[in-house]
């Protein structure tokens, strides 16, 4: 028998050719391998959201194997003895089973909850980064809108998620949600009874929320996230200004291998942190809340953090009821304004912002270079105003806890929130605007006169003055290019780089700068390993 020789070395090339003949992927693959990504830590905030979403999908799929989305009444007979014999819905009983009778179920449940909190937090922080650096400008307005929609869809995903265990806290949340729906003028009662299939709570809302939570909303999230990331890919990432970086190029690293490896490591890090959180920090201990009963509530029942701002706005709203005296009379209840109108306004504001700013600046250009927040004081101040508004609402969402812990009158907390909501945002605007101008001015000062050295000299006439280290060789004023201006001597290399090594140095430290008045601006001396000398000595022996 004759054995055919297999040329192992040629095998990958041969296999590659066979694939290419059939699928024709070589050219796009080359493009992907060569794609350049700019690097900055702030570009990774959105990734945290993406990665925690993946963790959400993984842990959520596990939970569906055990969760029973039913409001059928059962008598609990699981291993958590304090609740044995209690009447409850099958949904709540199966959530208890996940926590106590499924091996490793509790850590999965808690990871799922923590991942949701991290997901929403990453979305918000990522959105702030985009806003403050002007990354939403043309051509990226569409992606900004998709991103802000993702916040609200994530909000719904979170709300439906913590509603379906049917524990005491989630039932209270559902009741408030039904009140919010009821408050909508004209169609409120119809919307509510259609969603709850009759009067609150009905017997089907958990099943409906369940399918929304595990199918409809995730499908929407997956679709929008794909478009979101696809657009970043297509439009190429923005970059900070700097040497060689222009509006028409991308300076960074190619996607493979270094960039991709760093992303993979980052994913695992996010996953790992969520796993530790889910294991070590207890969250949503539903067995302590008991099943939902319409007559039972406890003080300090707060929603998840991303819902708290709406809770806060509801608490601060004065009891302004609008009566329309036609026929039997119609009512617009006060809860309508902070829970339906306010979110509506917020969605509209964030959607319209890129276009409003472009219009005000008469700006139709394409922008691929980011702006430092200080260079656009108006925008930065508007952002600070929004943050102040949001923070007052979030704190008001927990004002009963603050009042309790710090022994403040509850009513005083509410009034402080009402007043704070009106006066803190303008103050934040003014303060931020002034800080931006101050930072701008300092940048220009350093570019014109140099870095402060901390060296005070005395002139022959008795005057004292500080020595400045000019940034340019011929003491000329430099132009601001939109990037960090070195303001400390060590940023100029005057102090030498940090020494490598964690517990003990791996390198000999560079010579410290010597005479004052002659700050060494020449490049730091070549690094040498400590052991190099030892090796030389040894080799001489």
């Amino acid at each position, binding site marked *: 028998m004759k054995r055919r020789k297999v040329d192992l070395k040629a095998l990958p090339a041969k296999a590659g050719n066979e694939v290419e003949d059939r699928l024709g992927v070589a050219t796009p693959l080359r493009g992907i391998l060569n794609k350049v990504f700019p690097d900055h830590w702030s570009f990774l905030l959105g990734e945290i959201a993406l990665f925690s979403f993946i963790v959400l999908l993984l842990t959520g799929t596990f939970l569906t194997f055990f969760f029973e989305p039913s409001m059928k009444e059962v008598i609990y007979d699981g291993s958590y003895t304090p609740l044995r014999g209690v009447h409850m819905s099958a949904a709540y009983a199966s959530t208890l089973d996940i926590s106590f009778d499924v091996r490793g179920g509790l850590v999965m449940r808690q990871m799922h909850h923590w991942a949701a909190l991290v997901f929403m937090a990453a979305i918000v922080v990522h959105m702030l980064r985009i806003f403050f650096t002007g990354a939403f400008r043309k*051509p990226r307005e569409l992606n900004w809108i998709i991103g802000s929609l993702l916040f609200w869809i994530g909000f719904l995903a979170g709300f439906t998620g913590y509603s379906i265990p049917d524990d005491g806290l989630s039932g209270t949340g559902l009741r408030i949600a039904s009140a919010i729906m009821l408050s909508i003028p004209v169609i409120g009662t119809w919307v509510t009874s259609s969603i709850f299939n009759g009067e609150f709570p009905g017997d089907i809302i958990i099943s409906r929320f369940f399918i929304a939570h595990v199918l409809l909303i995730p499908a929407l999230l997956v679709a929008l996230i794909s478009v979101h990331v696809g657009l970043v890919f297509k439009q190429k990432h923005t970059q900070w200004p700097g040497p060689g970086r222009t509006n028409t190029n991308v300076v*960074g690293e190619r996607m493979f291998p270094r960039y991709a490896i760093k992303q993979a490591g980052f*994913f695992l890090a996010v996953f790992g942190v969520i796993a*530790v959180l889910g294991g070590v920090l207890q969250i949503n201990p539903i067995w302590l809340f008991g099943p939902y009963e319409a007559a039972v509530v406890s003080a*300090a029942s707060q929603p998840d953090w991303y819902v708290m701002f709406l809770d806060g706005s509801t608490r601060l709203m004065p009891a302004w009821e609008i009566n329309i005296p036609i026929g039997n009379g119609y009512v617009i209840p006060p809860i309508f304004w902070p829970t339906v109108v306010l979110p509506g306004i917020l969605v509209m504001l964030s959607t319209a912002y890129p276009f409003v700013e472009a219009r005000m600046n008469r700006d139709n250009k394409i922008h691929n270079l980011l702006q430092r927040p200080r260079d656009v004081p108006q925008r930065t101040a508007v952002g600070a105003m929004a943050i102040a508004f949001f923070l007052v609402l979030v704190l008001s969402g927990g004002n009963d806890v603050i009042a309790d812990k710090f022994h403040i009158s509850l009513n005083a907390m*509410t009034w402080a929130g009402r007043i704070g909501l009106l006066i803190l945002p303008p103050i934040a605007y003014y303060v931020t605007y002034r800080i931006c101008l101050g930072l701008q001015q300092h940048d220009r000062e350093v570019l014109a006169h140099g870095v402060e050295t901390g060296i005070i000299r005395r002139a022959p006439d008795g005057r004292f003055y500080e020595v400045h280290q000019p940034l340019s060789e011929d003491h000329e004023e430099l132009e601001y290019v939109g990037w960090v201006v070195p303001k400390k001597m060590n940023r100029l290399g005057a102090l030498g780089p940090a020494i490598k090594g964690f517990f003990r140095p791996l390198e000999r430290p560079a010579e410290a700068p010597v005479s004052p008045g002659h700050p060494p601006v020449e490049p730091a001396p070549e690094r040498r*390993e400590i052991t190099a000398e030892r090796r030389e000595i040894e080799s001489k022996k």
Partner: protein
Amino acid sequence: MSLQNGSNGTQHRVPAEIDYDDPRTTRFEKVRAAAREDGVEIVHYEPQFPPKGSRVERRLTRTVSSLFLLSGLFATAFVVIYIVWPWQWDPGDTWERFYTPLLGLTLGLSLLCIAIGVLSWGKKLLPREVSIQDRHDGGAPESDRRAVGTTLGYMVDELGVKRRPLLGLSLAAGLAPVAALAAAPLIGGLIKNPHANNQMFVTGWAPIKGADGSTRLVRLTREDGTPIRPADVSTGGQMTVFPGIPGGASNAHADSPTLLIHLRPDDAQVARANNLKGTGKDDLDRSGYMYGDFIAYSKICTHAGCPASLYEQQTNRLLCPCHQSQFLITDNAKPIFGPASRALPQLPLGVDEEGYLVAKSDFQATVGPDFWERP
């Protein structure tokens, strides 16, 4: 190493057409030429450890590989703990308490070890590079835009809706009902009349009509269904009561929970006087709603439907913990602070022939959160 040839920004001469079989061109030159095909210029490419096997490099390699091994160790620990650790809930067992934290820790540390290993591999061992790629913003050139525009315009003309307007009209008129057809079963199945059985205005306290036309008043009961005598609630005390009907304490009657309060005599005096005065916002006659010093209000907050259940005995205020609406018990449960705009409905109390507390009728005001068509 061959990779260093093109490093440090020194422009190395690379032939325009690269010959992939030419043994004289280095591999890096081929990679670089491939990158140029995509408009990517590798301007700086610098291995972090030019001399092979330096001490720092060996140390880093050791660190990364020990991280990978450590990760495997934690993963094994996870599996072992998952299988052998006591995990069933048992309040007497201290070991069981650590089951979930240990799973989270071992899983997390295992992942973090790979993460840090992979990250240091990528950041510290792989060559540093700076590449520049052109953006090609602003879309296709003018000629392409014109081409697409013309093709689209021609397509519309080809359909000939302008020439044959009837086609367009019939399309709009005929297919609109088809859209409704698609929407009808989706939405229609969900729609539910909110006013069926007058459900927005009726609670479990409505007197029960017997088959012979007689009506029976509903007793106030505890959660377990036992009826209540006035003597069961001490002065200044309060109790959550439910309608004494089948399932009266269940969530099927989520609008029925009521707070029964035994006021102190002088507070009861004030409350009775205020009952006669009314709230000023409605024209309900509340005289006779109280039974002795007993008064009962719906527990369902008129703001968002939470149970307004924190009763401050000294100030006679009722606080809803959800949004902090406060109601004054001695004044028709009028809202005195917070976002609620409407008084809590009051339940007319009486006593039946056996001496148990009953509701003389259903609530006369609408229970629960407000809505558009509330009269």
